[in-house]
């Protein structure tokens, strides 16, 4: 129509062939890729723990008590002669399930509450936020201990309680992000073209709070794993004989700390490593999913 009168500005630069997310992760964020790999490793180990574990979960061998790490028992054995590696692997299963499920539930709760509060504002916001305030008055651990003592320890109970606990507190963060997006010019533009609330939430609000949500999710996975370990340490976690990292630390790990430090080191290091891995992976993912960071990564933020 008007090509003749209007100068075309800019030229299409040759763009590199689009790479998959995994390729970009490895190339642009090696540390994040490492974190992802470690997390995946733990996940696979957890899922197939029964198959991978060299010894049975409660297979005792009184002749091989408190053995230091060796070729036969990579992480040594405990006071009952059980293989620590096998127990750490099966403990991973529990930690992973609790961590992932609790974090998923928490993120969902945060998004629902945060978006309702931040986007609709007004009276809805007032009601939800006063409820969140009231909830946040209680210290996390105290609330957990109280609830778990009432409903009794168990995996589902811990997932639900942790999910609600983190979810309600995290809704504040989502709310803040939503308010920023709601006041953005592009959200205003969408409203002025007649977009419905559903369209704005789906196309403008949710995609733009993803960085916050990803970080929220990954930090909550780590936190849930840690809290579950803490609860187990206090004897309120998933009840024995299921081997949990927290339980291993508090029970045999503490008692035999001087005789067999590997008893505490194995679950302790696993815990540290998996929480670290999920955090760096989350950070890398957040950066990669942001189109503004495309091609600019490595210049900004951690690799």
């Amino acid at each position, binding site marked *: 129509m008007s090509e003749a009168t209007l100068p075309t500005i800019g030229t299409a630069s040759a763009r590199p062939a689009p790479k998959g997310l995994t390729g970009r992760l490895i190339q642009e964020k090696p540390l994040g890729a490492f974190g992802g790999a470690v997390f995946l490793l733990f996940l696979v180990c957890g899922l197939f723990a029964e198959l991978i574990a060299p010894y049975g979960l409660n297979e005792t061998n009184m002749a091989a008590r408190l053995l230091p790490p060796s070729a036969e028992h990579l992480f040594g054995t405990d006071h009952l002669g059980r293989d620590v590696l096998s127990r750490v692997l099966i403990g991973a299963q529990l930690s992973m399930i609790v961590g992932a499920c609790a974090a998923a539930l928490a993120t969902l709760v945060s998004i629902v509450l945060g978006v309702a509060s931040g986007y609709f504002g007004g009276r809805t916001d007032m009601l939800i936020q006063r409820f969140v305030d009231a909830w946040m008055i209680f210290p996390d651990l105290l609330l957990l201990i109280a609830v778990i003592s009432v409903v009794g320890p168990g995996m589902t109970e811990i997932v639900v309680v942790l999910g609600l606990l983190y979810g309600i507190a995290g809704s504040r963060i989502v709310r803040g992000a939503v308010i920023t997006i709601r006041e953005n010019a592009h959200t205003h533009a969408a409203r002025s073209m007649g977009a419905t609330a559903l369209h704005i939430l789906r196309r403008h609000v949710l995609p733009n709070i993803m960085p916050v949500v990803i970080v929220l999710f990954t930090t909550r996975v780590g936190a849930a794993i840690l809290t579950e370990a803490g609860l187990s340490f206090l004897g309120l976690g998933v009840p024995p004989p299921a081997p949990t990292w927290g339980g291993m630390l508090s029970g045999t790990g503490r008692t035999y700390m001087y005789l067999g430090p590997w008893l505490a080191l194995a679950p302790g290091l696993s815990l540290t490593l998996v929480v670290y891995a999920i955090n760096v992976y989350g950070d890398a993912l957040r950066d990669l999913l942001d189109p*503004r960071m495309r091609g600019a990564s490595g210049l900004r933020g951690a690799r």
Partner: protein
Amino acid sequence: MAEPATDSAASELLRVEDLCVHYPVTEGLVRQREVGAVKAVDGVSFHLRRGETLGLVGESGCGKSTTALAVLRMLTPTSGRIFFDGEDITVLAGEPLRRLRRRMQMVYQDPFGSLNPRMRVRDLVGEPLIVHGAGRRSAEYRNRINELLDLVGLLRDMGERYPHEFSGGQRQRIGIARALALEPELVICDEPVSALDVSIQAQVINLLMDLQQELGLTYLFIAHDLSVVRHISDRVGVMYLGRLVETAPKQTLFAKPRHPYTQILLGAVPVPDPAVESTREQPMILGEVPSPRNPPPGCAFHPRCPKAEDRCREQRPRAQSMGQEARVACHLATPQARK
């Protein structure tokens, strides 16, 4: 210059009558009491014919953007009436308002904030079409987007990119393409070039003018840059503290400003000749803009006006016609003062 007087009423697209937008100021934590109002827009009237450009100028906070938002019905006016194509749209809501939105679109000031960073250019330009029920996969939809990209001078394969890959001027082209997607009759441009480099400003202004010619668009063009307004407008309205102090055809306004505020505003524009600039007499504006929460009685401009008289302090001047579509809200302006 003169429009055919016969069809002037028929071709009128927008009429704003005595528009007021007041924001209540409340006090009290539990029970909120209204203790006053910020009069962002206070009795503004103007009209806009099809194919015409009305420039609205004024300093920051004078209510020009609020006026635009009220016309766009992004907010509901406190009082006054807005007619679009003869229909009263002042209190329109729900589905009729959604239908109206197709017919008026906005180009935003901020070329960075007004484009969703997570959408591709193609989706940004097509968003209004999707919002109004186009199918994302239809050939018709894709063709329309290509057409729009052509129209604003962007390459078709740029549609696959994200906004952060573009310069400010290119982004503003994306914003213009988006505003044109629904073939609106009225386009409200809220300072569309003030965030751009001067060299790019001209390109975007020329693009807007070409598009107006080609598509018969009507513009409500808001700016604080007088030279930009002078270039693009047919008529210019000058706002001060929520009021429209003067409206006149461009030539009349720039050649013979009648309101003291307009005179001072025009005098503040530097002359591109150092010899003239250093010797010419510059009318100085006194003091600062009063708060719109507590505007001065009478003429809002009187505390800063070099010509203020007693009646200016007491009586609010009404807009009076000066002929040739010129209207001035000043006690001192008289039609015979023209020549």
